[in-house]
């Protein structure tokens, strides 16, 4: 069953960019990677899936219901989004930031219930932030603040998690850590869809891939079907060799200078 489905979705910014006639189903339980060159429409696609952008044509559905017609709180109880580089000029502690993930479950005036505190604790633990609980969010490094945003999304106890380039600007160890976390969440039953910059990481960790090129879906399917020499050349314009990963067998790209 599809968690999110896009039916003939189109979106354009002025004349310069257009995402056209996208048909896409994000299956329940998948770990989907969305790849493509800069400006191919990856982030726009994610914002459409999250409901933040309203398609100019076509329909986005969450579990079969039109997303645009659902109350925001109901959506946020099922779907959490981790955006890129969200910073704030205000002082919040890590715990306060993560507690915001409980907002869709609380009515106004209501104070946090034991269940909310448990969800926050669990999210902090899963993201490896136990030590950071009382630290100010503002002073954290890029990798740490990214983990806080992921923990906030986990506190929403979502069925589907959308992420926009969660590993960009992070060093190798942090990248690995975040992908390991996403894989583990996925194994526990969470549907995950992420816009990814790094083709090799995407091929290594994702179950399915969607490759965008110039606002259209160029290829979709298993990493093996999407990551081919011809596709990479068509999508990115780069000349590469594709070889299996030494231990996992997933296709990996090597740039040929």
């Amino acid at each position: 069953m599809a968690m999110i489905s896009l039916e003939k979705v189109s979106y354009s910014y002025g004349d310069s960019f257009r995402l056209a006639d996208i048909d896409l189903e994000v299956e329940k339980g998948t770990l989907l990677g969305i790849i493509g060159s800069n400006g191919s429409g990856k982030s726009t696609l994610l914002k459409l899936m999250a409901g933040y952008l309203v398609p100019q044509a076509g329909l986005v559905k969450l579990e079969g219901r039109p997303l645009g017609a659902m109350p925001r709180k109901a959506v946020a109880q099922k779907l959490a989004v981790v955006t890129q580089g969200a910073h704030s000029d205000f002082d919040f502690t890590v715990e306060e930031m993560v507690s915001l993930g409980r907002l869709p479950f609380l009515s106004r005036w209501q104070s946090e219930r034991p269940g909310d505190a448990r969800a926050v604790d669990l999210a902090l633990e899963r993201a490896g932030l136990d030590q950071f609980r009382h630290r100010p969010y503002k002073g954290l490094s890029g990798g740490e603040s990214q983990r806080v945003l992921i923990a906030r999304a986990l506190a929403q106890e979502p069925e589907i998690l959308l992420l926009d380039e969660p590993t960009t600007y992070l060093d190798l160890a942090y990248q690995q850590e975040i992908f390991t976390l996403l894989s583990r969440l996925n194994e526990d039953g969470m549907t995950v869809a992420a816009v990814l910059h790094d083709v090799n990481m995407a091929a290594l960790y994702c179950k399915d891939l969607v490759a965008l090129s110039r606002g259209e879906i160029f290829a979709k399917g298993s990493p093996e079907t999407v990551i081919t020499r011809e596709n990479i050349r068509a999508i990115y314009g780069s000349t590469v060799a594709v070889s299996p990963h030494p231990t996992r067998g997933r296709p990996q790209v090597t740039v040929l200078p």
Partner: protein
Amino acid sequence: MKGRRTRAAAFIVLAALLFLVLLAGVLAGSVFIPVADILRILTFSPLSEGTPAMWPAIVLRLRLPRVLAALLVGSALSLSGATMQGLFKNPLADPFIIGVSSGASVGAAAAMLLGLAWTKAGAFAIPLAAFAGGLCSLFLVYSLSASGGRRSTLSLLLAGTAVSTFLGAVVALLTYFSGEQLQQVVFWMMGGFSGRNWLHLFSMLPWLGLGGGIVFWHARDLDALAQGEEQAYYLGVEVERVKGRLLWASALLAAAAVSVSGLIGFVGLVVPHAMRIIGGGAHRWLLPASALAGGVFVVASDLLARVVLAPAELPVGLVTALVGGPFFLYLLKKRRVA
């Protein structure tokens, strides 16, 4: 660390300070009344033999309403400032950022020029005109900034600046032609509490209750909005609806406050900023702390304004800016070092 303990301690200190400045505010004046007698008057206890008959009237009719008006105005301006800052995700926003002050000034100046100040209803015509002017300017900004059902914070800020500047020019024009009322107009724009009575206090109370209630009701949404509108949207906040409510609520607070006191700057900017440094940015702390500290700040400023050149009085808006300005710079400097 900005834990619960720091916040609890800050509330206790602020409450104690508030009690002290309120008492000092009632104590200060040309007629000296001993503290013991003031407390007796305030608690309606029987007075000792030989207490001058004027004392209860001085305390209850002159000083108390004035001090309480300063308290409410300070609270309202600080709450309004904290809300605007969260809403615009900008710690430099203040209650007047969308033109409430210039709108209120046009209203007040127009009422003065029409000579309403000298009529019997004058004491209320000016607050009413200022209140209406402030809300009109928000209405103008609010309608000008809409496009396709959404109002981006940027278009709100731009429309606010444009309307503010234009109305500022209208105020200047009115001031230019004000003739005999010149001094009155100028004084109003520097803010003050002299001659404010219980009716002034009660006339702003419902608006402060309404605006304050709405703002407190949305404390968690403000936490989310302070992360940015897209983030708030993903956390389940109906962004446009909540933004509209908070904008009107904070304008209501600012307009009601300004209608009674005249323009008092800096409070809405400095107080929430200081409270953020003490206890962090979470609005369930920030809003009540700002309301309390704002009250303390304006009551203390009014006290200073009355005492420094006694028996003459300084405009309170001058004092808040003269004290608040350097304090704000000090905070900024200290923060950069920390």
